[in-house]
């Protein structure tokens, strides 16, 4: 059953009691909360994702709750708990949904070491995955959102999850957090895209979430082999350039980009060298999204 198949009351009841078992990509997340605004957004953004019936083993146990004490009434806050631990300071109550998203990202980055984890967006076309590794500020999320709005399948905006045993990328499609100017950029670029409410004053400025396309959510169980490694660099006013890079350079950039390369040891080395061996490799400098997408489409169609 999909989350949208539950009534609002059923959803609230599960969240408030034993927890809602939400399936997102390869992970099952048990979510508990009694915050109405969070419940509404969870239903909106994860409506097309499966919910598991209990009993089921959850990979992550998450609670999004209001701390007790005076903070229940005065400047109310929200707290994120993962497996009973609170890794972050509380946020203001209205930021419960972005807190959940960041908290879950943190949990995955800390725990999902069955995969090589790249800090990258990943999208698929014609059966091959385009990996866009980048640190914040390179335009990764914006480019990913634009590609998805033009028909590429969303694997993830945040994680390239590489299976250790066969090198396939595993989808983890979730809402894409657009930040600051990117929100209006994507509103203009993809007027039909569903973008949620803007959360102002977060640690990353203003954030609004782009809904995962139904087709991407429906294929969240289908992995694919990597085809291209493209390191994006957004520069205002930059002329588009797609520059091939050699394998040693790509290897260094990818190993440094990974969340858990060192922790995986030899498995990490083998996973990164396999990616470098099998993918075409480029640095993409761009400022115009249409140009960037035309170029990447041509790359995929070649």
């Amino acid at each position, binding site marked *: 059953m999909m989350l949208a198949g539950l009534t609002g009351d059923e959803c609230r009841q599960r969240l408030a009691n034993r927890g809602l078992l939400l399936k997102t990509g390869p992970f099952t997340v048990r979510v508990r909360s009694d915050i109405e605004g969070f419940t509404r957004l969870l239903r909106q953004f994860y409506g097309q994702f499966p919910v598991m019936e209990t009993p089921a083993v959850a990979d992550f146990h998450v609670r999004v709750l209001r701390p007790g004490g005076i903070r229940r009434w005065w400047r109310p806050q929200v707290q994120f708990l993962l497996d009973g631990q609170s890794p972050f300071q509380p946020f203001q109550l209205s930021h419960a949904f972005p807190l959940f998203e960041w908290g879950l990202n943190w949990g995955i980055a800390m725990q999902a070491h069955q995969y090589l984890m790249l800090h990258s967006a990943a999208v698929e076309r014609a059966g091959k995955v385009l990996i866009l590794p980048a640190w914040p500020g390179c335009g990764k999320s914006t480019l990913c959102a634009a590609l998805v709005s033009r028909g590429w399948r969303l694997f993830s905006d945040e994680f390239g999850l590489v299976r250790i045993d066969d090198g396939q990328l595993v989808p983890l499609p979730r809402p894409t957090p657009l930040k600051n100017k990117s929100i209006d950029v994507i509103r203009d670029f993809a007027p039909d895209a569903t973008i949620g409410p803007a959360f102002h004053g977060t640690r990353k400025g203003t954030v609004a979430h782009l809904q995962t396309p139904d087709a991407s959510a429906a294929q969240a169980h289908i992995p694919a082999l990597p085809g291209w490694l493209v390191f994006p660099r957004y520069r205002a006013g930059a002329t588009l350039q797609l520059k091939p890079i050699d394998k040693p350079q790509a290897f260094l950039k990818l190993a440094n980009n990974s969340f858990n390369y060192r922790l995986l040891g030899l498995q990490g080395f083998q996973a990164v*060298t396999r990616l470098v061996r099998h993918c075409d490799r480029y640095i993409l400098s761009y400022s115009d999204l249409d140009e960037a997408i035309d170029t990447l489409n041509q790359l995929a169609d070649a």
Partner: protein
Amino acid sequence: MEVSQQAQSTTGWKILEEDALHWEKWGEQYALYDALSGETHLLPEFSARVLQQLSVHPRTADVLARALCEGSDETCEQAFVEHVSQLLVQLQAAGLTEKVQS
């Protein structure tokens, strides 16, 4: 303490643990993962050949230099032996080689 060039060239060298080294070759560059230290190294082909020679058995810089010159038309000059000696010290600093106790 200063060590004379002659003393350097008679010092034996070996790699730390051959089984711990995992290689990936890309043209004239190599990626090397050392499972003993958890470190990854990007090496030019010459460094890789030096390490691979040492994996056969420990050698002095002299013997190593002569082995590297084999099949080449060039004579094995003293300057080349010194170059090999310096490289072995650099590889030692990277945790890939060590001196053999005589």
